[in-house]
């Protein structure tokens, strides 16, 4: 049993407040560093964040809309239909991919200084959130070009969906990054799984098109109802309602699993790193 106390701060509520502020400071600085380093030395910089969803949308439009002549449900053009899901998906996918190695790649730091370590994978999520928010003006521009005007509903819907996705991601990255310390294969497995996961999420098809007994399994996908909610918000200005309850359940489960994994594995980092 071991206890550490900060003696110059009284053992009261202030102690926790001071620790919380410091943890948030750390998250802020780490996020800023991550944002800065991500595209350092590249010519296009931040544009790479946009390139990923835009190029995917282009290729999917060509294959599905132009070649196979599939029409998007509703009246939205196929590109908008895709992009309204691909932007939030890119935030999800990059966060998980970039955070998988956040413990294992920071061994020198983790072995020398003690700090709230969960900040490391979380900073990958928040820095990707920063990129996601920066890419929203591009989405709005495209929406407006096709005559889709964002409504005031966004002011409620956007923060709400960001919060839910943030919680799911926080749990997921803690889980993946913690296990990756002991099994580096996970990093590579995650990369493959994320590609497959894209097709199992209502991105190139709407959630409503999924029917039948087997189809209902899609609700086991934590991202299914969430991505549909993003699309409803971006295209129809619809504030998410009760239909996103699966996402909330998955957020709670992810946080629980992530915290348990991190708490129980953290003690063994010193040997495995």
């Amino acid at each position, binding site marked *: 049993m*071991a206890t550490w*106390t900060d003696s110059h701060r009284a053992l009261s509520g202030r102690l926790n407040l001071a620790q919380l502020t410091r943890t948030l400071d750390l998250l802020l600085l780490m996020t800023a560093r991550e944002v800065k*380093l991500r595209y350092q030395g590249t010519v296009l910089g931040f544009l790479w964040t946009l390139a990923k969803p835009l190029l995917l949308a282009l290729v999917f439009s060509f294959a599905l809309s132009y070649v196979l002549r599939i029409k998007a449900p509703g009246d939205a053009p196929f590109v908008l239909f895709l992009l309204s899901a691909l932007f939030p998906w890119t935030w999800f996918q990059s966060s998980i991919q970039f955070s998988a190695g956040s413990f294992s790649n920071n061994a*020198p730091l983790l072995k020398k*200084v003690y700090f709230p370590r969960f900040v490391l994978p979380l900073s990958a999520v928040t820095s990707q959130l920063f990129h996601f928010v920066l890419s929203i003006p591009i989405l709005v521009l495209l929406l407006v070009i096709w005559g889709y005007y964002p409504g005031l509903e966004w002011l409620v819907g956007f923060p709400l969906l960001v919060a839910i996705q943030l919680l799911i991601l926080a749990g997921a990255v803690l889980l993946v990054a913690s296990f990756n310390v002991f*099994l580096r294969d996970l990093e590579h497995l995650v990369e493959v799984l994320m590609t497959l996961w894209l097709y199992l999420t209502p991105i190139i098809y709407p959630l409503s098109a999924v029917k039948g007994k087997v189809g209902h399994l899609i609700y086991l996908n934590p991202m299914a109802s969430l991505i549909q909610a993003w699309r409803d918000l971006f295209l129809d200005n619809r504030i998410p309602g009760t239909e996103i309850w699966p996402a909330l359940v998955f957020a709670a489960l992810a946080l629980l699993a992530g915290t348990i994994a991190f708490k129980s594995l953290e003690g063994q980092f010193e040997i495995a790193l």
Partner: protein
Amino acid sequence: MRSPYNEQEVIVLDNVSKRYFLHPQRMGELKTALLHLPTFLRASRARQEFWALRDVSLSIRRGESVGIIGPNGAGKSTLLRIVSRLAPLTKGKLTVRGRVSPLLELGAGFHQQISGRENALLNAVLLGLSRKEAKEKLADIADFSELGGFFDQPMRTYSSGMYVRLGFAVAVHVRPEILLVDEVLAVGDTEFQRKCFDHIEKLRQDKVTIVLVTHDLDSVKRFCDRAVLLNHGVIAAEGKPREVVDEYLSRHFEFSASPTSRGDS
């Protein structure tokens, strides 16, 4: 109810033990583990215990400077790692009161691609300051590290001496209450080394508790109020620096004189 420990005691180890397992072969990869499953299972059973520390009891008071000496593998660094929270202990009880600043390896976590200033800020927050406090210290850190214009250059342009200087500057400016120093002062030029020792001396006068792990027995005699001799994970001697150093030297002399007799404690 009476507090079990004196308030003046800032580090208290009560029968602390630390066990490591030695694996004949590490199977870090899934593929290796699966391909050699029988070996893998046998290996996990054949793991060997190694006690880096055994029932170590030690208490250090506020403002005290304690030198930890002993041969390689005696458990000196493990002790520091446990106190700095980097290694969980296996048995026993540990109480630490006050902000610990580890000087275990200077500049851990510095990133090559960003400037010394940005690294210093992040490092100071890592070591326990808030962002506001860290920003206020930046001028002092820049001054102490003698980096001049390099402070705002990316750290990949730094020489190893500059790297260490910045690391030390950050570590001593985070207002530590407990400073853990592990064999890091043998770096930098003589001039900077003296500056480091002067600064540590100043911290000592400010009632900062210092735990110094080193092979440099002279600095233990010069700086410490007390010395602890570790050998094979147990405390072999404890007391006045001069006496403990003499004890260590005589033991060491005995060891090298008759390598067959490994009689300790």
